[in-house]
């Protein structure tokens, strides 16, 4: 018997079901692993005289939070931020604070504007990145000078421009996360 039209539940491709069994390990760990790698990779990638790379761990957190609302628990900023603090060069506790506050604020935005498009998400993420980089500078323990803020401008610009490719990458990770683990029959 032929099927008529597409399956009724269009989300079923990524939501489990008969012959769509996901690997629970992969489904539950991929976001955390990618965020941790995002925190780690800039540390071993370059040695620069000025800050140029955006905080990739934070960018990954934002992408996952926007892409899969409800997946990351609200308190996830504590463990992930603590890991980020170990490598970022910031004083210990700055990412714990800022990531937790980000999660709370994004939750408020989520309840206030339940339906959003890509542009609104980009806008939200851009504002979050700018605020994060500026506040991280404020709490870094270094005396605040004008040249430091000027030096942060390229970093902020790169961070904002990197959101769309990272959102695409996180979408790809999400497909990998929920792809079926084995084919039956």
């Amino acid at each position, binding site marked *: 018997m032929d099927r008529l039209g597409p399956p009724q539940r269009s989300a079923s491709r990524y939501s489990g079901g008969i012959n769509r069994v996901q690997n629970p390990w992969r489904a539950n760990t991929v976001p955390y692993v990618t965020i941790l790698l995002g925190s780690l990779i800039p540390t071993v990638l370059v040695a620069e*005289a000025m800050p140029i790379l955006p905080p990739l761990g934070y960018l990954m957190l934002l992408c996952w939070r926007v892409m899969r609302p409800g997946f990351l628990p*609200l308190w996830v900023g504590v463990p992930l931020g603590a890991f980020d603090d170990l490598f970022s060069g*910031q004083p210990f506790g700055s990412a714990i604070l800022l990531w937790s506050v980000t999660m709370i604020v994004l939750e408020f935005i989520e309840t206030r504007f339940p339906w959003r498009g890509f542009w609104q998400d980009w806008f939200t993420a851009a504002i979050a990145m700018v605020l994060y980089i500026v506040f991280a500078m404020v709490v870094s323990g270094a005396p605040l000078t004008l040249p430091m803020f000027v030096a942060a401008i390229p970093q902020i610009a790169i961070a904002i421009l990197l959101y769309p490719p990272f959102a695409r990458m996180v979408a790809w990770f999400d497909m990998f996360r929920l792809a079926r683990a084995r084919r039956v029959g």
Partner: protein
Amino acid sequence: MAPPSSRRSSGFSKKAQYSVFTGYLLAGLGALLGLALLVLSLWQPAAFAPLRSGASDAIAPVGTGTAQVRDASGSTWQNIKAYWNAGSQNAALRKEVEEARIRLKEVEAVAQENERLKSLVALSESEIEPVAVARLVGSSPTSSRRFAYIGKGRSDGIEVGMPVRSARGVVGRVLEVARNSSRILLLTDSESVLPVRRSTDETVAFAEGRGDGLLRIRLINLGLNPLEVGDVFVTSGAGGYYRPNVAVAILSEKTPDGGLARLVAAPSATDFVSVEPKFEPEAVDASLSSENSPFDQTEDGGEAAN
């Protein structure tokens, strides 16, 4: 269209309401915890050093691998770039080499004279043996603080405060030591202050990091600014950390009280660094023990920094 389950309000379900409330509560407590840790680590920068040391020990091997790739890819790029303008560059280099040969002869003469004068005053200059030679395995490229990591630590005899230099010039100073890795305060960090002098005369100054990749040269004797763009600054040996006459920076811009200078040994172009013993440990200890002297404040601001 109904919103997805994660975007639905919790409605009348007590269980859902409690779980939302608990989520907010935990996140709020987490933020407070972060604030407390942040205040603690700004107040006592060394408090979390063991944690960070363990972490940097763990990633040092990974960093070694990426550092090798980085060096290789960097030199490939340099090779490709070198083909651009190869002709005119060749002519310019030829001219420069000829001039350099002449200068070299002059320098040889000066060196010989130097040796003779030193033997007259019976001053023997011993070559400083580096404590360790290591790769720069990582840095803090996302933070406004400038730190780097090397893949050798306490087990190789490295101690806090030792100067770190590359073949070109000063890179920074050891700030934290773990078993197999150490953290380096780069010269461009805004907490780093280094006493320097102009290479051609005795104009002394402080080279302070600005946090944006440049150094601010602040003259000690104010008055008419004698500096000129292109002046080379070397360590003066004051303070006791760095031995004198190691290249630090080249002046790129003049300001009323000194100027802005570029690093001679940019960390991104640095492959191997050598960690040297402190030049005069006695002087460092003396300045550390006198807690409230202003000299100590400027000299060791980076020491206390996180």
